[in-house]
């Protein structure tokens, strides 16, 4: 770096180098913008880096790690600059992005100034408090994904997964592929909202209808449709298997055990509506417990600013009010990716391309005539409809609610 970045003015600072941020950085840089991406990880790519799924149509693999490397290369080739190992902790109108370097090395500028800022900070996991959850060996399902697929270290030798959703099933499979003994998947403790067998299957069943291809992949060639059939039936079976991994559809976690680290887990049988069956508690010997309780959009950076928020369970939590072209109520402030709703990496990438169109238009960066942001917004709705992988089937309803709030608010503040 020839000039310290702190004294330079950027056209765009992107906070978060996941698929949304990297795509936007690439496109705005390609349109001639001066772009800087900051990310607190040691490598760019965000959650994409840890993803590994089998494609339902042709059995090829979705290797997030390779896609992340490519995304970074493309953004750099387009002229975007990057700083890793840095946390953005403050935003001041005008715009100033305050930075800190928690590792105490790889230091850099204390702040960046920019005409536009894109918040693309992604999503984080919703905690699942339960007795013993702070013991070493008890971790989120996302930590298990990162350890297994990125760092190639087994989360444990014998692992219990708690919580049944698209993510936990996918990651259980990834652990099994890597040689981990995944001894089973059980339901969250009964105190966790919506954790009963009926509620869990109620969430999964519509997805099986909307995305049969995904369930084919999840169920695997060997197991056929037994699980999907279980979803459709009124009697919930005790256990079904996926790739040989038992899914205990009527068993819930009670507590995680151990003194210095996890040595076991206590589980209990539950009725369809989640009432524990007295006397059915038993202990399982495991050295790791992976907790899956859904994802929440991460956007606390915007909370200090004068910008309205809206709660939407369809989107996974609270999100800043924004337009369908991903503009916020604040001039020069944009949002894209899981920070405004939990969705797959493919959608995050499309949102990155869309927000880039808005930024390019607003900053007057390129006169090249291509797709407008308004057209891009319509394409995104179409893409969502054909997506084979959804965290929540009602995600578009959530986005529509945000759009109505945007229109009622009269757009930019």
């Amino acid at each position: 770096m020839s000039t310290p970045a702190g004294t330079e003015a950027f056209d765009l600072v992107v906070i978060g180098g996941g698929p949304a941020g990297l795509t936007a950085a690439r496109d705005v840089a390609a349109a001639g913008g001066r772009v800087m991406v900051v990310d607190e990880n040691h490598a760019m790519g965000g959650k994409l880096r840890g993803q590994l799924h089998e494609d339902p149509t042709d059995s090829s693999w979705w290797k997030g790690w390779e896609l992340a490397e490519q995304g970074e290369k493309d953004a750099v080739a387009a002229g975007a600059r990057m700083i890793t190992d840095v946390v953005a902790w403050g935003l001041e109108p005008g715009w100033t992005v305050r930075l800190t370097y928690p590792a105490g090395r790889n230091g850099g500028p204390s702040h960046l100034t920019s005409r536009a800022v894109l918040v693309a900070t992604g999503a984080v996991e919703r905690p699942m408090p339960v007795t013993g959850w702070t013991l070493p060996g008890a971790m989120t399902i996302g930590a298990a994904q990162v350890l297994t697929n990125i760092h190639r270290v087994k989360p444990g030798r014998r692992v219990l997964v708690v919580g049944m959703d698209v993510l936990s099933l996918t990651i259980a499979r990834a652990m099994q592929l890597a040689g981990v003994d995944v001894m089973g998947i059980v339901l969250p403790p009964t105190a966790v909202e919506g954790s009963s067998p009926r509620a869990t299957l109620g969430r999964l069943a519509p997805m099986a209808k909307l995305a049969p291809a995904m369930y084919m992949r999840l169920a695997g060639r060997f197991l056929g449709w037994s699980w999907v059939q279980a979803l459709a039936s009124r009697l919930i079976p005790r256990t079904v298997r996926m790739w040989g991994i038992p899914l205990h559809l009527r068993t819930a976690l009670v507590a995680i055990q151990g003194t210095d680290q996890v040595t076991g887990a206590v589980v209990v049988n539950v009725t369809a509506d989640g009432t524990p069956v007295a006397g059915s508690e038993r202990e399982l010997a495991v050295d790791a417990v992976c907790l899956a309780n859904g994802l929440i959009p991460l956007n606390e950076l915007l909370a200090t600013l004068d910008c309205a928020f809206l709660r939407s369970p369809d989107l996974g939590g609270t999100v800043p009010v924004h337009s369908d072209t991903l503009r916020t109520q604040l001039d020069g402030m944009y949002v894209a990716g899981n920070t405004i709703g939990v969705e797959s990496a493919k959608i995050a990438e499309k949102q990155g391309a869309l927000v880039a169109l808005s930024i390019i238009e607003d900053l007057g960066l390129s006169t090249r005539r291509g797709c407008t942001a308004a057209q891009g917004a319509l394409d995104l709705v179409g893409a969502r409809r054909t997506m084979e992988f959804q965290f929540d089937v009602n995600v578009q309803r959530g986005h529509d609610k945000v759009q109505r709030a945007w229109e009622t608010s009269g757009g930019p503040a």
Partner: protein
Amino acid sequence: MRIVGHPVLPDLPADEVGFTFNGEPYTAREGEPVAATLLANGVRKLRVSPVAGEPRGIYCGIGHCYECRVWLNNDTQVRACLTPATEGDSFTSERTEV
């Protein structure tokens, strides 16, 4: 606990960075966070909670929860799930008074 010969993903480069944790020597793969190196060697407990003295280890794995914090060279508190070691680093659960 290392995963070798993964059926889908390519192998990672070999170990090459030496560091210590609570005085014990370990070898990390270049760029991997210390918590991953330690787990690969069967070490899960990274520190104890200041008040109750309860053990703590990796929880979120993505830098969000700060449960994994350790001291780097007795000088800075870092998140072990994000921070890679550089040659000769000393990581400790506690800071020692100097």
